[in-house]
């Protein structure tokens, strides 16, 4: 029996990690971190509700690509498209990586991008304390592709990262680094399933008074498995806003680690997830950690899940207020609408506060469709299914409201309506 056969899946996965060139010692350091912490098991506190087995396995579980019949997302928006096909940059399908006020480079060709080599893996490393995030370290060590985006001005045109899944066995690992210089502003759009299995990390450094908007739609593939990690540092007077729409997907875990390091900064993260496990499993996990390390910071977490036919939702959200982070205003809400008795929502809201003059609130609810409201709509002639769809949109409204730009909000609502129309009873 060879040594390889005796390995556990986690050991086999670690043994396969290769370190691409570039980004200096950051990759070696990431591998060292990864080896020290190991890959997670079900006993790890933050993996009790989401089974990491398929993320650990040396090979991805085969996943058939989904043929999307809806018009291309953000198709009417003037944007700069950067396309990745099964985790590999597709120059042909992408636009010219030239945009006023922005420097964009491919990770694989960016051995000498100085601003990024100092940042690559840095925010991910910071995000490993106090909760370990081994898959993000794995990503930093082994990601071969991704983009490095430096924003120096107020940029009107959004950058759109488009992830295409074509191969049944693709294992996409992408790492992006985004740096907004002082006073800069940009909107980053992300959409698509990325691969049969995907591990996507985005490090975002938002300098003083800069504004970062992020809108993500994770594709309609039913079988794909995806783990994402956003690691952001938010400086004085800066704004970070992220919204994610997830519909379908056998496994999704979206981690978001936000670090407010400057006074008067804002960090908003929101998500709407819709899952129907009638024909294929749906498991969706939002794991959020927001640290307030400066005064008068404001943070919001607004997460809504609509679950049916045995779909599973998880929310683990934490607000940590460090000593001295006075006048912090932290808000967190996680809610699930269960459309039947088979679906399940597990939530762990956490507050940890070491400053005495702060305002923090959190709430979590799980419920069914409001029968009184349903009757009200039906009494006006609206059939049950359509009335239910309206009430689902009503339930999701608070999360959608977190998207600042109306044009994107409308597009998200259209997608939601499409999902609801396809998943009637």
């Amino acid at each position, binding site marked *: 029996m060879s040594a390889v056969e005796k390995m556990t899946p986690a050991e086999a996965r670690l043994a396969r990690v290769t370190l691409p060139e570039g980004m200096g010692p950051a990759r070696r350091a990431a591998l060292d971190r990864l080896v020290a912490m190991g890959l997670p098991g079900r006993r790890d506190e933050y993996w009790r509700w989401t089974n990491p087995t398929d993320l650990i396995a040396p090979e991805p579980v085969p996943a058939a690509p989904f043929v999307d019949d809806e018009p291309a997302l953000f198709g009417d928006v003037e944007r700069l498209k950067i396309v990745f096909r099964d985790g590999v940059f597709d120059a042909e399908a992408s636009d010219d990586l030239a945009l006023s006020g922005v420097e964009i480079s491919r990770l694989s060709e960016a051995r000498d991008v100085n601003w990024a080599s100092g940042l690559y893996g840095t925010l991910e490393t910071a995000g490993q304390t106090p909760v370990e995030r081994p898959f993000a370290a794995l990503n930093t060590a082994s990601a071969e592709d991704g983009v490095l985006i430096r924003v120096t001005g107020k940029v009107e045109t959004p950058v759109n990262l488009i992830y295409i899944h074509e191969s049944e066995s693709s294992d996409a690992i992408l790492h992006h680094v985004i740096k907004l210089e002082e006073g800069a502003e940009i909107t980053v759009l992300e959409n698509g399933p990325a691969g049969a299995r995907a591990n996507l990390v985005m490090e975002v450094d938002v300098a003083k008074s800069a504004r970062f908007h992020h809108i993500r739609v994770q594709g309609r593939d039913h079988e794909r498995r995806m783990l994402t990690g956003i690691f952001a540092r938010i400086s004085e007077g800066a704004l970070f806003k992220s919204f994610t729409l997830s519909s379908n997907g056998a496994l999704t875990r979206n981690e978001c680690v936000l670090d407010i390091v400057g006074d008067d900064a804002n960090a908003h993260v929101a998500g709407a997830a819709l899952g129907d496990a009638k024909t294929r499993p749906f498991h969706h996990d939002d794991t959020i950690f927001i640290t307030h390390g400066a005064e008068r910071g404001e943070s919001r977490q607004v997460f809504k899940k609509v679950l049916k036919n045995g779909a599973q939702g998880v929310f683990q959200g934490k607000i940590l207020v460090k000593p001295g982070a006075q006048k912090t205003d932290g808000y967190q809400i996680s809610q699930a609408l269960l459309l039947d008795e088979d679906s399940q929502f597990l939530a762990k809201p956490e507050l940890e506060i070491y400053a005495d003059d702060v305002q923090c609130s959190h709430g979590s609810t799980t419920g069914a469709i409001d029968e009184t*409201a349903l009757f009200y709509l039906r009494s006006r*002639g609206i059939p049950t299914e359509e009335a239910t769809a309206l009430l689902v949109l009503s339930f999701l409204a*608070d999360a959608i409201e977190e998207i600042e730009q109306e044009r994107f909000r409308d597009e998200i609502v259209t997608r939601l309506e499409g999902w609801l129309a396809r998943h009637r009873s």
Partner: protein
Amino acid sequence: MLEIKNLHVKLEEEDKQILKGVNLTLEDGKVHAIMGPNGSGKSTLSYVLSGRDGYEVTQGEAHLNGLNLLEAEPEERAAAGLFLAFQYPVEIPGVGNMTFLRTALNSQRKARGEPEISAGDFLKLVREKAKSLKIDAEMLKRPVNVGFSGGEKKRNEILQMAILEPKMCILDETDSGLDVDAMRLVSDGVNALRDGTRSFLVITHYQRLLDHIKPDVVHIMADGRIIETGGPELALEVEKNGYAALLDKHGIAQEMA
């Protein structure tokens, strides 16, 4: 025409009989009022007719222009021309009033095999109807009933009625929570819809609403039955003497709330 025969209803969850044999015939174009003390079964009657869950019909029947109401879904009853103005209109955050109104109108049209209304025609229709009820554009844009005052909610109910153009309108305690001015606005809205063919069943605790919406027939309901039927003078009699004398006359013990 609405015909209710010997209707007996109990609560689904508990063994409590609420309606104990209601008989009522409401002809086209007429306005009937149902008055009665609290707990007499007035609101239950409105809910059972419109199809709310939680009630079990143990006996009797109800038809609207030939449709067996008790076997139809709430949306089918609506499409057949039944409308209930709620005592407590429901707030629906995140759903615009306009979207709600248009979805309701088009659902009913579709159910009746009629073409959907165009966006332009709908807008014109809503503006015209809203104006007479002093409902401004801002209120139409807001989510359904969210942040509306009591009076605004009731006006919004009447607006829905005006747009959906039902044949049979049930007003459940529409006067509750309204001040004098709001009551006049709402009543004017209802009166504007009296066209000689549309019928109304006005459920109220007090006579004052009937000063504005003049009924053809007044019923007094108590203990799950209609115990007296008469003209508008019956409402005045109740206003003057209260329900006590009538209840005594019919041997019904008063429940002291």
